[in-house]
């Protein structure tokens, strides 16, 4: 008895030793900075002088007297509203096609996935050139079809759609996740549906979609978080400006400008906390809505 309790204590000690890098890292690089960031968000702070407590001023200014905050929120929401659904449909669509027992699965999977692994700066530079209004390949191709292509990154109305198209090029990671989800759907379910006389669409609606809804759900959550963190592409393409006419002033880009161009560190921290709350809220909404459309097999059994 005594022996086993010493062993347990020994194991607990080992356990804490093993996770100690995380504990130290968590305190030093996450929890501590989080607490300081929260405090700083209520301060006027330029990092050269000590923070000066100003109460809710930063937050009040954000919501009442900051045109660019509203703009950056709008840009980010607009992008998310386009990139998220299109991303889900595209990557799910490709995954479904790949799941038709086509030859060369590995080849196609590789081609579709490769853009997702490439350095953001190089990719952004490439797309800036692709979308060049006069000599970029997109408008030259459109011209062959007799279409006069828009100004893309030089046109406030087309800058975000251009970034959405760019994001679809990198939708391959989602495709791989959906493909794995599709491959795990038991074939008996399809066979049973066929015996009941279900066509292709019915099978998709009643078998595929419910079975992979948890995967879609997870990807939507990660997609929300991801689309609120767009930075590199907008920064590289506009040289950090978010131009033209603030049309690519993404939330995180604005936050970066406040912190490292204007040294409004307290304000940047307040922006970061609002970002966190937005992401948290949207995630909770998706979780709550998930009850209605996400199908968990375990629940039915239970």
């Amino acid at each position: 008895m005594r022996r086993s309790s010493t062993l347990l204590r020994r194991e607990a000690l080992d356990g804490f030793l093993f996770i100690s890098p995380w504990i130290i890292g968590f305190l030093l690089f996450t929890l501590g900075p989080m607490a300081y960031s929260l405090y700083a968000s209520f301060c006027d702070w330029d990092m050269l002088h000590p923070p000066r407590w100003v109460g809710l001023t930063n937050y009040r200014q954000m919501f009442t007297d900051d045109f660019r905050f509203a703009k950056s929120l709008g840009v980010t929401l607009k992008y998310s509203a386009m990139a998220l659904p299109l991303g889900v449909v595209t990557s799910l669509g490709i995954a479904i096609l790949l799941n038709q027992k086509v030859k060369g699965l590995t080849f196609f999977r590789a081609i579709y996935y490769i853009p997702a692994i490439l350095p953001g700066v190089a990719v952004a530079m490439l797309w800036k050139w692709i979308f060049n209004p006069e000599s970029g390949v997109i408008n030259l191709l459109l011209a062959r079809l007799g279409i006069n292509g828009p100004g893309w990154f030089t046109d406030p109305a087309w800058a975000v759609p251009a970034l959405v198209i760019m994001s679809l090029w990198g939708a391959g990671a989602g495709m791989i996740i959906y493909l794995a989800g599709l491959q795990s759907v038991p074939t008996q379910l399809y066979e049973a549906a066929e015996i009941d006389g279900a066509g292709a669409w019915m099978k998709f609606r009643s078998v595929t979609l419910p079975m992979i809804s948890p995967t879609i759900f997870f990807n939507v959550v990660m997609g929300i978080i991801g689309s609120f963190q767009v930075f590199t592409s907008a920064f590289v393409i506009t040289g950090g400006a978010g131009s033209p006419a603030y049309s690519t002033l993404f939330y995180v880009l604005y936050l970066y400008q406040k912190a490292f161009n204007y040294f409004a560190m307290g304000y940047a921290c307040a922006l970061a906390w609002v970002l966190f709350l937005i992401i948290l809220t949207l995630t909770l909404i998706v979780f709550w809505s998930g009850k209605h459309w996400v199908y968990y097999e375990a629940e039915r059994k239970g």
Partner: protein
Amino acid sequence: MRAGELARSRRRQEAIARAVAYVILVAGAAAIMVPFVWMVSTSLKDKDQLFTRELQWIPTLPVTVQVTDQEYNVYTSLSDGRYGLLLERLPAGKMRIAWLGKERPPETLARVPDDVETVLEEQVAQYRRPGARWSNYREALTPPNFRFLLYLRNTLIITIAALVGQVLSCSLVAFGFARLRFPARGPLFIMVLATMMLPAQVTMVPLFKLFVTVGWYDTFLPLTVPAFFATSGFFVFLLRQYFMGIPLEMDEAARIDGASSWQIYHRVVLPQARAAVATVAIFSFMAHWNDFLGPLIYLGSPELRTLSLALYAFQGEHSVDIQLLMAAATVVMLPLLVLFAVAQRYFIQGVVISGVKG
């Protein structure tokens, strides 16, 4: 009979679906390839071919003719197709051309022809033949334009140090969570997962202040040291999942033989988890190789730039030399393409594990 019919119609349906899928997949793959082809094609063009109004996939080079020790560019007349040598450019868009004839000009001539005429720029076109300007790569990757080897070294130092740190610390922590019992294990692990939800921007400013205060600004340390403290919740999660799949009896057997937790970690569990460790290593490599915001914030000196940061700076300085930008971008992408080619399995595996959590 009925079942046979059903099976036959199903087979036919599947064959049609597969054919349609194939066509769409090939079209999609072609669309995915367009940017790559455009990038490489651009990187091999010369400046005169960049800002054209017509679509040109194949790089061309101007044809020149050597006359004694002088090289002349060849132009063709738009009206009658004659070839001629450009002798000099005059003001107001005029050019002095020495006409040769309608046959393709030879590489060398003994003397400049006598049939000299002054024409307007619009009346002639530069005579070009398919050919790649490989020297763009040399120009793009050598100082003072782009100190490729230096930036490569910087990127490798950061990437490899962070990779070692992540693999080491995350596997230790994951082992603790997966194989050892200790108080508050569950709640602590939930904290690990919760940090995955936290946007990095929340801690960005205080971390910057912290690293500036300890004198780490303009060093690689802010980009590497945190990696040694299991700061990636995703990697801890991924490794823990994998470790949990290894039978616990193996630990117990080793313990009875007197093995310590450390020995179990590196003699029993780690050797069984090579695939998971490889996945973490690859994702860590990719994240740090591609990182932009970190180097942008912490590295001030040009000598410390990483490839991504240097590429951004290069764009600022050479915004019109698109052919050089595309050459540099191609080279910066190349290592990841090679890595993907040799380790595709681990990339796919990592993505799949990241997605099945839901």
